[in-house]
C-alpha cells in the first residue's frame, strides 16, 4: 500500500522539532476554516433598515394566491413611489401560525413592522402587548370611522380604547343551495327557506337515494363538525345565538357555552345527523372545505351551511353563477343560489384579515403610511383573500348593488364577531372537541358541555 510510504516521505519533509499533534494541521485546513467562518459571518442577520411586511400569501400555492402576491407587489411598488427613501422587506408566515409567531418574536426581541393578523386573536395580542395602537399613526379622524364601523367585526378591532387592527375586507358566510335539485323535488328555486324549521323540512325532501341501493346519495344539508375551530365559529355559534345564548361573557370574562341555548344548539345539530338524517356522518371529519365546498360542487349536498364569501370564485368557475367574480352589474345566480342563515338573528360569523403594527417596529409612522397604501379600495378588490369590501363607500358602487351582493351585504350587517377573549383558540378548541365527543361518542350533551366549560373556566377565566 502506498499510504504508509507516503506518510514516511511527507513526515521526513515536514517534521522539524517534535511538536504537539494539535497544531500540526495541514495548511489547507486553515483555509477551509477561514472560508467557513467568512461565510458564516456574511450570513448574519440583515439590519432592520427596511420596512418589514409580514403576510400569509405564498405565490406557489395556486392561482388565487398568485393574485394575492401580485397585489402585495403592486402595493409595495405604489408605496415606494410615495416614500422612495425606504425599502420594503417581505416576510411570510403560514396563516395559522402568524399570530403566534408575532407574539413569540416579540418576547424574543425580534422586530417586525406591518403584520397581518386575525380579529379573533386581537384580544390575545392586546394582553401580550405585541401590537400598538393605530390611531396616532393613521391620523385617525372620527368621521372616517363610519367607513369601517358599520361592520360588526369592528368591535373586535377596538379594544381598551386602542385600535389594534385595520380590517382589509370582510369575510362572512351564507347558506348556498342547488336550484336544480330544488326543482327536482318540487320546491320553488326562488324561495329558499327562511326559518330553521323550513330548512329542516326542505332538507328532508332533498335527501335522496338516487340509485336505489339503500344508501343516501344526496344529503339535504351539509354542516361541518370536524376537529377544527371552524366548527365552533361557523356551525355552532349561529345556532347558539339563535337560541339566545353566547359563548363567552364579557362582564365576568367566563365561558358560558354550556348554557341552555348551547345545549339546544348541540341537540339541534345532533338531530340533523341522527334524527332527521339530513346531514352525512362524514361531516364529522375532514376539512371545512372538503365537507362544504367540494361536496356541494360534486352535488353530494343540496344545501350548504356556512358557505364563505371566499368561495364565490369557485361557484363562478363551475359556471353556477355568472358575473359575480369580479363583481359586475350583471351578477346573477344560475344553478346555485344563496340565502341568509335562516336563524332568528340571521347571524353568521364575520371576520377578515387585519393589518397591524408590531410593537418593536422601527418606523411607526411609515408603517401607518404603508397600511394606508394597502387599504386602497380599488386595488384591494384585486386580492381574492381580502374578501368583500370593508369600506362602506365601495358598497355604494353599482356592481355591489345587485341582489346577489346585497345578500352578502345583509349577511355582514347581521353578522357577529367572535368573543374578545384572550384565549380564543382554547375556547374554540374546547367547544369543537366537546361537539365531537357528543356527536361521535354519543355522550350526553349537557354534562359534556358543562365539563368542557368548567375545564376552560378553571384555566382561563378572567382573561
Amino acid at each position, binding site marked *: *500500500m502506498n*499510504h*504508509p*510510504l*507516503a*506518510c*514516511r516521505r*511527507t*513526515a521526513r519533509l515536514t*517534521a522539524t522539532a517534535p511538536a504537539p*499533534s494539535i497544531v*500540526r*494541521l*495541514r495548511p489547507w*485546513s486553515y483555509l477551509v476554516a477561514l472560508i*467557513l467562518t467568512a461565510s*458564516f459571518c456574511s*450570513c*448574519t*442577520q*440583515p439590519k432592520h433598515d427596511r420596512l418589514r411586511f*409580514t403576510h*400569509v400569501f*405564498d*405565490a*406557489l*400555492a*395556486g*392561482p*388565487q*394566491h*398568485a393574485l394575492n402576491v401580485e397585489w402585495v407587489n403592486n402595493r409595495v411598488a405604489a408605496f415606494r413611489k410615495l416614500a422612495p427613501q425606504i425599502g420594503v*422587506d*417581505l*416576510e*411570510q*408566515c*403560514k*396563516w395559522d*401560525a402568524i399570530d403566534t*409567531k408575532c407574539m*413569540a*418574536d416579540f*418576547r*424574543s*426581541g*425580534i422586530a*417586525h413592522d406591518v403584520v397581518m393578523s386575525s380579529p379573533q386573536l386581537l384580544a390575545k395580542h392586546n394582553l401580550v402587548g405585541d401590537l400598538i395602537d393605530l390611531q396616532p399613526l393613521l391620523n385617525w379622524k372620527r368621521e372616517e370611522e363610519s367607513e369601517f364601523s358599520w361592520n360588526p367585526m369592528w368591535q373586535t378591532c377596538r379594544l381598551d380604547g386602542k385600535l389594534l387592527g385595520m380590517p382589509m375586507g370582510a369575510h362572512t358566510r351564507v347558506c348556498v343551495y342547488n336550484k336544480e335539485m330544488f326543482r327536482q323535488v318540487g320546491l320553488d328555486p326562488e324561495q329558499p327557506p327562511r326559518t330553521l324549521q323550513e330548512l329542516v323540512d326542505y332538507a328532508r325532501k332533498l335527501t335522496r337515494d338516487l340509485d336505489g341501493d339503500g344508501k343516501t346519495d344526496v344529503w339535504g344539508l351539509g354542516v361541518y363538525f370536524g376537529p377544527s375551530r371552524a366548527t365552533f365559529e361557523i356551525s355552532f355559534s349561529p345556532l347558539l345565538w339563535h337560541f339566545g345564548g353566547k359563548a363567552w361573557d364579557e362582564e365576568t370574562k367566563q365561558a358560558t357555552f354550556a348554557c341552555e341555548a348551547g345545549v339546544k344548539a348541540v341537540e339541534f345539530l345532533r338531530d340533523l345527523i341522527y334524527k332527521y338524517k339530513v346531514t352525512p356522518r362524514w361531516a364529522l371529519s375532514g*376539512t*371545512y*372545505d*372538503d365537507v362544504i*365546498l*367540494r361536496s356541494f*360542487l*360534486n352535488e353530494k349536498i343540496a344545501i350548504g351551511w356556512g358557505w*364563505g364569501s*371566499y*368561495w364565490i370564485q369557485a361557484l363562478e368557475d363551475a359556471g353556477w353563477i355568472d358575473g359575480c367574480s369580479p363583481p359586475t352589474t350583471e351578477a346573477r345566480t344560475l344553478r346555485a343560489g344563496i340565502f341568509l342563515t335562516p336563524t332568528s338573528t340571521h347571524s353568521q360569523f364575520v371576520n377578515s384579515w387585519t393589518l397591524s403594527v408590531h410593537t418593536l417596529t422601527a418606523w411607526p409612522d411609515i408603517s401607518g403610511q404603508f397600511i394606508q397604501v394597502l387599504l386602497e379600495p380599488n386595488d384591494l378588490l384585486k386580492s381574492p*383573500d381580502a374578501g368583500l369590501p370593508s369600506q362602506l363607500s365601495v358598497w355604494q358602487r353599482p356592481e355591489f348593488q345587485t341582489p346577489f351582493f346585497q345578500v352578502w351585504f345583509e349577511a355582514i350587517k347581521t353578522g357577529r364577531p367572535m368573543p374578545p377573549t384572550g384565549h380564543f383558540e382554547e375556547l374554540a378548541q374546547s367547544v369543537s372537541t366537546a361537539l365531537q365527543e357528543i356527536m361521535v361518542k354519543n355522550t350526553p350533551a349537557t354534562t359534556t358541555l358543562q365539563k368542557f366549560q368548567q375545564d376552560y373556566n378553571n384555566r382561563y377565566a378572567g382573561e
Partner: protein
Amino acid sequence: MRLLQKWILYIPYVLFSLFVLFPFFWGLRTSLAEQFDPRLIPSHFTLRHYQTLLSRPDFFLYLRNSLAIASASILITLVISALGGYALARLRFKGKSLGGLLLILPLLPPVAILVPLISYFQRLRLYNTLSAVIIANVVFSLPLTVWMMRNFILSNPVEIEESARIDGCSRCRMLFSIVLPMVGPGLIAVALFVFINSWNTYLFAFALTSSQSLRVIPQGILAFLGTWGTYWGGLCAAGILALIPPVALFLVFQKWFIAGVFGYQLK
C-alpha cells in the same frame, strides 16, 4: 417448472413493491387530475398543476434554498462527524466510555427545544438567516452521524492505521488520507442521511426564518393547505417534484448507501 418457480419467487417482491408504491400512484393521479374530480381514474388528465408550479420563479427559489441548506449541512456534518467519529473509534482518552451517551441525545424532541433555540439565535444575530437553519440541521443530525461514523471506522481493520502510525503519520493526516477513503460508502451513507433530514424538515425553517426569500420546499408544500381550502392537485404535484432530487441522488449512490448502512454483504 423451473421457470415457474423462478417467477413465483418474484411475487413477494412485487406485492411488497405494490404496498410501498400505492400512495405514490394516488399522488400522481391527483396531481394529474382536475381539481374536483372524484373518480378513481380521472376522466381527463391535465398538466395544469405542474404548469402553475413551474411557471413561477418562487419554486426555483425554494429549490435553491433547500439545496443550499442541504449541501452546507452535509459538508459541515461530514467534517465534524468524521473528526468526532474517528476520535471515538480509534483514539484513547479519558471519558471515551461516555460516548454511548450520544445515543440518548436523539431522544430530545426538536419541537421542545425549538422555542429557547429561537432566542439563542436572535441573541447571536443569526435569526432569519440560512445559517441558523443550517446549524440547526447540523446539530440535530450530529449525535446519530457521529455514532454512524464511529461504527464505520470501527468496522475497518485497524492494522493499516497502525502501520501508518508506526511510519509516523500524524493523526490528522491519517484521518483524511487513509481512514476516510476507506469508509467511502460510510461517508456517502451519512451524507444521504443528512440530505434526507434537511430536505424534509419543515420545523427549522418555519421557526428560524421569516423572510420570503429564505423559504424552503416543505414550507412551499404546506402552503397549499390554505385558509379555506386545500389545493390538492398542486400539493401532490409539489410533493412529487420535491421527491425528484432525493430519489435521483439515491439512484446514483444507491450501491454505496446500501453498502454503507446495511453492510457490505448485501450486494
